[in-house]
């Protein structure tokens, strides 16, 4: 019989060294993803290091206008935080568009960013899957994949990253603060998650033992005018088929600052840099928004059953930008 050990250290150092010393160890946030995967036999840790005892429960205003969020902050607390709601509404909206009240009450910021894909094959320990069992193949390419990637995938894996929060954070150039035992370091959120390439088993650039301690949101005045929208199979309590997080500042009818990220369409939160590039200085019109988003999506490579995500994402992104520009409606 397998035994599973559980620890709840109160210091970062103890937590990190415990995980570093045990190859089969995992950090445990709210457990809403990890424990599910353990039940499915996808994760089989022999040590759980609970991070809820670590001093990462605060949301602090930083000098200069940014905000630092502890990795153990619960999703519901982050969504309700007045500072976040006024300065970065996209973050609050992304969280509230995800999961359910009950899940958000336990899910943590760190766990949310590192949750695993909802690809059905990944969750079925009896099936091949390059992400779960490297080298076994990717049945999703021929199989059930309507919810999977149209951007950034590889012939080895077409999974999507399911986090809504991460999409908002990607748009805001958030920094992820990590402690791995050799001193703290910062990783831009847009570089935290990897594209699969030929190593789909590695979701992120983190090494075993790396602990997320905080997320830092830099000052972004345009984020006051930001929003998150999501399309899914039912009105609540479901993952994104496609989602958009955006912030926009318009001056004299021209796009002055813009941030755009897409979710549910790629193996990582997809920062739409090509679209942003085209938009800077462009007229803030539905036509310009459409052209920019189309440019971003021109590299999309849909699978047999998920081509609908291309128009869906285009419509969604254009709508959000129009909304933020104060213009009603998108082009029909």
């Amino acid at each position, binding site marked *: 019989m397998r035994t599973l050990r559980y620890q709840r250290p109160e210091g970062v150092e103890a937590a990190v060294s415990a995980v570093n010393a045990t190859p089969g160890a995992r950090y445990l946030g709210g457990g809403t993803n990890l424990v599910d995967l353990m039940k499915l036999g996808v994760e089989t840790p022999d040590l759980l290091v609970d991070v809820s005892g670590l001093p990462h429960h605060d949301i602090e205003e930083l000098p200069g206008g940014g905000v630092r969020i502890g990795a153990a902050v619960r999703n519901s607390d982050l969504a309700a935080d007045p500072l976040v709601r006024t300065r970065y509404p996209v973050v609050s909206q992304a969280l509230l568009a995800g999961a359910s009240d009950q899940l958000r009450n336990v899910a943590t910021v760190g766990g949310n960013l590192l949750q695993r894909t909802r690809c059905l094959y990944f969750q079925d320990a009896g099936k091949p899957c390059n992400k779960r069992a490297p080298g076994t193949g990717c049945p999703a390419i021929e199989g*059930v994949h309507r919810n999977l990637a149209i951007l950034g995938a590889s012939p080895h894996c077409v999974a999507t990253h399911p986090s809504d929060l991460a999409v908002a954070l990607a748009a805001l150039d958030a920094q992820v603060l990590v402690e791995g035992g050799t001193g703290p370091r910062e990783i831009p959120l847009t570089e935290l998650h990897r594209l699969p390439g030929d190593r789909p088993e590695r979701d992120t650039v983190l090494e075993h033992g790396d602990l997320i301690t905080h997320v830092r949101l830099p000052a972004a005045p345009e984020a006051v005018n930001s929003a998150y929208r999501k399309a899914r199979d039912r*009105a609540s309590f479901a993952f994104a088929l496609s989602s958009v997080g955006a912030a926009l500042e318009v001056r004299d009818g021209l796009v002055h600052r813009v941030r755009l990220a897409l979710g549910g369409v790629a193996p990582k939160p997809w920062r739409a840099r090509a679209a942003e590039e085209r938009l800077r200085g462009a007229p803030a019109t539905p036509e310009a928004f459409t052209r920019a988003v189309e440019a971003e999506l021109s590299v999309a490579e849909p699978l047999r059953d998920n081509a609908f995500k291309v128009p869906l994402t285009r419509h969604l992104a254009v709508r959000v930008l129009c909304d933020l520009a104060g213009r009603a409606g998108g082009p029909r």
Partner: protein
Amino acid sequence: MDILRTPTDLAQRGHGGVGESASRPDGVLKVTGEFAYASDLWARDMLWGHTLRSPHAHAEIVSVDTTEALSVPGVHAVLTHADLPAATHYGLEIPDQPVLAGDVVRYHGEPVALVAADHPETARRAAARIRVEYAELPLVTDESTATAPGAPVLHPNRSDHYADRVPHPNVVHHQPVRRGDLAAAKARAEVVVTGEYELGMQDQAPLGPESGLAVPAEDGGVDLYVATQWLHVDREQLAPVLGLPRELVRLTLSGVGGAFGAREDLSMQAHACLLALRTGRPVKMVYSRDESFVGHVHRHPARLRYEHGATRDGRLVYVRGRIVLDGGAYASSSPAVVGNAASLGLGPYVCDTVDIEALALYTNNPPCGAMRGFGAVQACFAYESQMDRLAAELGMDPVSLRQLNAMSQGATMPTGQPVDAPAPVAELLRLVRDRPLPPPRQWETAVGTGTGFDLRALPGGLSNTTRGEGVVRGVGYAVGIKNVGFSEGYDDYSTARVRLEVVNGEPVVLVHTAMAEVGQGGVTVQAQIARTELGVAKVVLHPADTRVGSAGSTSASRQTYMTGGAVRNTCLLVREEVLRLGRERLGDTHPGWRGDGLWLRDGAVVTAGGEVLADLAQVLGDDVIDLEREFRHRPTEPLDPENGQGFGHVQYSFCAHRAVVEVDAELGLVKVVELAAAQDVGRAMNPQAVVGQIHGGSVQGLGLAVMEEIVVADGARVRNPSFTDYLIPTILDTPTMPVDVLELADEHAPYGLRGIGEAPTLSSTPAVVAAIRAATGLALRRVPVRPEHLTGT
């Protein structure tokens, strides 16, 4: 032995006779979380059972080695096909399902071996150490692979009574319904519309997983506490498998967390009993959520092809239909599903020329069987879609076209059976059509949000997806017909035992039936009936068990009719006995005893005029009246195998819906704003429960329309066995549901009532889809309709 019992022995004092909204005796317990479900059962010293299931949908079992599993500490027994003591197969109607697979597995998740251990996790891990060698076989997954030349025959050497008349051994049952001269009718038709339709596989999605506790008894028998829909049919199947006489197999209903058909077949019953008898210890089995999704039957997915011919002024001239249902690996209730689909395949309309055939296939897909509205649901989606197409073709209003062709009392079914009770189809349609439409763009007017709009009222709900840009409204209608009770000559009955005595001066009625309370509210209605007929406030419901005669199944909308009827009849006999005793003992004390029309009220015998003659305490003294009687509905007859003619059904039930949707086609989002229903219930025994059933059925139909589907892929495997991946409507997906209830008595039924549970599930799906079609102009031939069907690619 300590056994944690589910409190099904519910006592209720108080109010609420027939026709009143008495509250549920189990309501508070359920809402406060105190109700014990079957998964809460517990016995001292009990072991936990676990099922090893096939990873393949079709394979030969080459070898099974249990050595390693048996050596796991804590394991008490491992059973395979070779260990079965007696009958090796069971089945609701056709015993084609192995208790544990022998030479071959026919679906993904089929039980292959069992383990009993002192901890559920030990049992699970030991099961993983059973070595089974499989040799995969070619798959049969649809009509073409099932009937192709050289197709593997899934059940060779069939001896069931459909075997001789099916066109192919991979067809479970085939039922044509033919009436009228098709060639002549075709010549008369001025307008013809044809269409092909498809329904995905819906799951009953009961919240309570399959569970039960089997306790071996000193007499060599077994007591099984279980969540099921029909105790006695479980016992009929269990006794031969256990090699025991029926009397030694005793079942008691435990708390049932939803059923909807999923508990009509055996799941863990035989397995737990076998393990208990083998180990001599109580054995509990509880399926996990993903196991539950493969551990019960689903709604038959279907492909339907229809052709409707009509005159220019909209009268149906002929209807042809072909309904192919995928029954999966075992028969389950496929024959009844086929019978319903064929005989109700025209819908609630009048048409003299009908040529409909329905069939169910054997395939290697997950077995399909009973689910709310079975057979009639699939047909209704297709015939109602056709009525809309016909209306469009004729340039007619879809409601008027339906009303023009609507059946009414006196009509003849395509089976030749006369409709000899009210059939207010046109009136139900009128009721839903005449309701004022909900105001448009309600997200702008919703109060209390402070933001100027209410996300919850928008397509996409809390996903914050749209602000109402490009949202288009559509309205759709549908009406359906469902049979009530067991049809086609089945000897369908229920039994009730009623005991009346006086305890501490207060008369008390005990009602004892084997009816499975699965949430439908039968327990409430039984108490209401007893109160009404016996005029007694205190009614105690005995736990449902096999010590009393069969109640039949809690399915086919039949329990209020059947067990309600049985309770009523037995109560009337008890009342007669009270009056006989009263006349005998007190007849001289008052001339009123000699009069007709005596009845019981407020614990006393009263005259027709309401004068009290005596208290029940005076009449009964220490005597107890305890009677058990069966109740039958009127007989039916089998449908003719060639043309489907026959007096096949007991009663029909009708419901109509109007769906109002708002669709954002660019984003593929549908918001059902309102789903209005009108249903004839004959008699609203408990008005609140009636509305509850109509609401529940409507939402289950909505789920099929826009989200619910078991994904079967990658070699006939269930791919979404969880509530994260199999989506059912949340409260935010649930619309406002105004309900009109008609009470037109059916003189053949107790109290004139009609079974109501299933009818609302039928028309809800096509009404929602019709509304989406109206909003988008898309053809939408398949349910569920998903975002990708609206956005296009």
